[in-house]
């Protein structure tokens, strides 16, 4: 187990390095001059030169690359000249608001996906199964930002059940429980939109994995010993189907962040989505590239964790058979 863990960790290092190289190349190959963007179009040459020196942009490229790598190792992913703060700091400030949407949505989606997927597998080709599969296909095709707009049109504007945008009611100054309920009320529509796109992959994989396991000999053996269908399904088939389910959840992290950013934009939710949008408008590229790099590293880590969990659950994985 230790050897497997070390091996997987060592395999992750070149990936992280590769991701940082890609990000650096993007930053430096991009047209446009960050100094001009910062100091304005009509600064004089001396001022530009001073700024360039201050930010180390006058040094040769390979030196800049090593400076960049050295900073990465120290957790410095760039500086937002616009906000005059480190990009990581700005992003971490907005992250909780995004997680406030993502985490509940993922939790709800996991419960729905696994339970409906298991039921659909148990009653293959039933009405439930067919509707679940149709819903999955639709969920894969619908753009999440459009779904958000439609939810907003229907349930906020037409029926007035939920607030239109934002995280809390700006007109009132709630405290304590009422403030929490106010935020929860604002969360409903964005979370529903996210759940709709998070469920399909989880449900589809659950269904497929449970069906595959129900065909196995050990299931027949358990049934032959007189265990009920229900018990066999929940105690035998589902746990054995967990590996692919864990994989799909782990591998979807980038997709989940993308969904959240888009949903936040529609609902004017103050999270990473809004930060990203304002960074695009202000050409604050440090924020954008830092976000790309942080997310890449998160994905590498998630893959690593998934693999390690896998090998804990299933010894065949670490022995490579």
């Amino acid at each position, binding site marked *: 187990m230790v050897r497997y863990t070390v091996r997987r960790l060592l395999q992750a290092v070149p990936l992280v390095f590769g991701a940082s190289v890609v990000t650096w190349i993007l930053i430096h190959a991009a047209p446009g001059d960050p100094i001009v963007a910062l100091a304005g179009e009509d600064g004089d040459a001396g001022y530009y030169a001073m700024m360039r020196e201050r930010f180390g942009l006058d040094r040769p490229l390979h030196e800049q690359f090593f400076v960049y790598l050295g900073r990465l190792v120290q957790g410095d992913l760039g500086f937002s000249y616009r906000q005059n703060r480190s990009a990581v700091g700005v992003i971490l400030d907005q992250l909780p608001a995004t997680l406030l949407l993502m985490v509940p949505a993922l939790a709800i989606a996991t419960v729905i996906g696994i339970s409906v997927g298991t039921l659909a597998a148990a009653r293959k080709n039933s009405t439930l199964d067919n509707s679940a599969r149709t819903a999955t*296909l639709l969920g894969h095709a619908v753009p999440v930002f*459009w779904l958000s707009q439609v939810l907003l049109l229907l349930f906020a504007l037409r029926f007035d059940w939920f607030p239109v945008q934002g995280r809390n009611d700006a007109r009132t100054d709630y405290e304590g429980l009422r403030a929490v309920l106010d935020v929860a009320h604002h969360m409903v529509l964005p979370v529903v939109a996210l759940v709709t796109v998070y469920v399909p992959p989880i449900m589809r994989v659950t269904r497929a994995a449970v069906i595959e396991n129900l065909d196995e000999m050990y299931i027949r053996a358990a049934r032959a010993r007189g265990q009920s269908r229900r018990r066999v399904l929940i105690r035998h088939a589902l746990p054995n189907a967990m590996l692919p389910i864990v994989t799909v959840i782990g591998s979807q992290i980038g997709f989940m962040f993308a969904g959240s950013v888009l949903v936040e*934009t529609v609902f004017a939710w103050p999270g990473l989505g809004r930060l990203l949008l304002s960074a*695009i408008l202000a050409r604050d590229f440090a924020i954008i590239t830092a976000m790309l790099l942080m997310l890449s590293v998160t994905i590498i880590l998630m893959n690593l964790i998934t693999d390690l969990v896998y090998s804990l659950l299933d010894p065949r994985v670490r022995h490579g058979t």
Partner: protein
Amino acid sequence: MADRLVALRERAVSGRRRAGPGDADHRGARGTGGSWRRFASSPVAVVGLALTALFVLVAALAYYIAPTDPFSFAGTPFEPPSPKHWLGTDDLGRDVFAGVVHGARTSLFVGVAVAGASLVIGTVVGGVAGFAGGKVDDLLMRVTELSQVLPRFFLALTVVALFGPGLRNMVLVLALTSWELTARVARSGVLAVKELEYVTAAEALGSSPWRNLRTHVLPNAIAPVVALASLQVGGAILIEASLSFLGLGDPNVISWGYMLNNAQSFVRRAWWMSVFPGLAIAVAVLGVNLLGDALNDFWNPRSRTSGASG
């Protein structure tokens, strides 16, 4: 699609161990007379084919279906749907129907270009890796792994934000990040085929390795790769729409995402500006996804358990 992709990835990752001459057996079913009938007997295939055909026809005949220029002022702003403007007009009095029809061209172009690139890059990288083996294989697979961990949406967003909006940049970055699975499947296909006797025979007859790969190995390993590449179309359409929705689309080309970006500011005032372009995306993506699923049930039968018809 994602879950099917995971299933295929698992199969492809372990391809080196599992792949053997016997793997080619399932392909025997193809080519027998009933293949079209078998394909057409699946409702998924039929619906997918019909929706995709509709999508392609609208894109191809856009200038006949909606002669109005989608950027021209066709009426007063914010007209609701009416016999004159079927889907209403937007904030500048542009016809939404014309926008939806012409937007199909952009989506189709992006989807097909990305899937085509995924097929070409994946086949070359996977084919060379599987055929050459050894160090070349290891290096190429490391690169493939890297392209898998980079988040596509954010990478595309970064590139388009840094290098400027435009369809070319968008297609380029989506193409460069979409070949991981096609490469893996091409590689395991090549691994299975290259051990077959006719390949050894060709080698013995003096056929060069490159020629051998091109004329003997790849043609027999390509079908599952094509099917897999078809699954990239829907994803590429969705990402293009998402980026355009964030204001990173090509400003000179009408697209469904651009229309939704514009609609966002007027969502209280003009519901039709939001509803119809989004519906168009959903129908188009559903169509190409269903067709891709059907193609994969046909050519990648081992992942059929996760398929819509399974």
